[in-house]
């Protein structure tokens, strides 16, 4: 049944284009949802999605470099390849949606590639859990249309987190409700993982 399995790159790029068109015109709040989250706006959507873009680029970089720096085998290798591909797709989606407004910020830099397998495990779990907390923390700041797009990504990050945890022998879903993180909390978590936050 996985309808998603057959989804083509073209299909999600079309969705990105639709989201992008809405962001540019500013007309993305439909009448039915007009009362939603009065604090959200297209301008704020751009800010939040650029934050997400910076994070997705960090993740894509992490997996690309890990495949060279660490000798991964078996299902861990499969994990890094599959998940790395997803992160690259998330980057492409967000860049496409943001168009000329794509300016990833804050700057998130992986200062070094993982040096060992245990280092890779720790960072993979840390980054994926942080990704879930980041998207969940921004949900209320997004207009419904952008939230719908972010929701397509956050559950995939949660699947990645669960997969990495299970592979590492940790509980894949440690709590009944995931704890969100605001921008400063995300920055703090990333700093702890050795990411340089600009």
């Amino acid at each position, binding site marked *: *049944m*996985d*309808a*998603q*399995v057959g*989804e083509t790159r073209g299909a*999600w790029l079309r969705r990105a284009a639709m989201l992008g068109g809405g962001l540019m015109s500013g007309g993305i709040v439909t009448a*039915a*949802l007009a*009362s*939603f*989250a009065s604090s959200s706006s297209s301008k704020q959507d751009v800010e939040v999605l650029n934050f997400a873009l910076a994070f997705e680029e960090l993740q894509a970089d992490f997996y690309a470099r890990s495949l060279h720096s660490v000798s991964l085998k*078996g*299902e861990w290798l*499969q994990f890094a390849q*599959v*998940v790395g*591909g*997803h992160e690259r*797709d*998330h980057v492409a*989606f967000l860049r496409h949606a943001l168009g000329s407004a794509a300016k990833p910020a804050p700057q998130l830099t992986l200062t070094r590639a993982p040096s060992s397998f245990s280092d890779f495990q720790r960072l993979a779990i840390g980054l994926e859990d942080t990704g*879930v907390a980041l*998207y*969940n923390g921004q*949900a*209320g700041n997004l207009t*419904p*249309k952008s*939230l*719908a797009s972010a*929701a*397509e*990504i*956050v*559950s*995939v*990050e*949660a*699947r*990645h*987190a*669960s*997969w990495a945890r*299970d592979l590492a022998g940790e*509980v*894949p*879903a440690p*709590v*009944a*409700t*995931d*704890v*969100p993180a605001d921008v400063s909390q995300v920055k703090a978590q990333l700093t702890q993982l050795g990411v340089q936050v600009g």
Partner: protein
Amino acid sequence: MVDGGALPPALAAVDRDGALAEAAANAAAGGSELRRASRPTRRGLIGLGAGAAGLGFAGRARAAAGSTTGSQQDIGILNYALSLEYLQASFYSEAERLHSLHGALADQARIVGGHERAHVSAFQKVLGSQAIKRPTFNFQGVTEDPDGFRRTAVAFEDLAVEAYKYQAPRLQSQAFLAAAIAIHSVEARHAAWIRRLAGVLPAATAFDQPLPPRRVEALVASTHFVVAAPDMASHQAPKFTG
């Protein structure tokens, strides 16, 4: 290594009438899968009716959207979420009670079951007297053996992710949105966990898609897991007198 294929076993586990496969085929053509899912058999009609009653609150929420306040729409969505949580919580609790599972699968059922029961309690607390009651379930034997359990759990968890994803942007209240989105990602963790235990790729695609309630209801109805609707009379808003 985990098999990257689609999930026909999960589908087969819940698709006892073949209704879901038919619905999926019809969805592309824009047909009404709920109508097409029903069969002119007594069993089918009872199952569908009970399913529609147990999970039919989203329909009410949709109807309400145009004419009533946002908070009433939110209550419809929360009751819809509660009905899905009842389904999941009862499923895991029963598998645990029957001691059908061992090892990693038993651990998954214990922990995930605990989460689903916590979600039920949270929605019941928020909804108070407006909370729907727990329907009566008959899991048709799938809680009695590991294979049936695994296939059904995969289907339930992926379905929950799709259902929450559809509803979250439709919630008006920031507090309810925060709760729904925090549960949504946990359901995705559950889904990846049980998929790996079932030998399928935990994260099959880069983007998870939402599923509208009409299709969720059709899928659940096709399982005949919901055998008795909750008592509808008790969901009326209290009358204030004097």
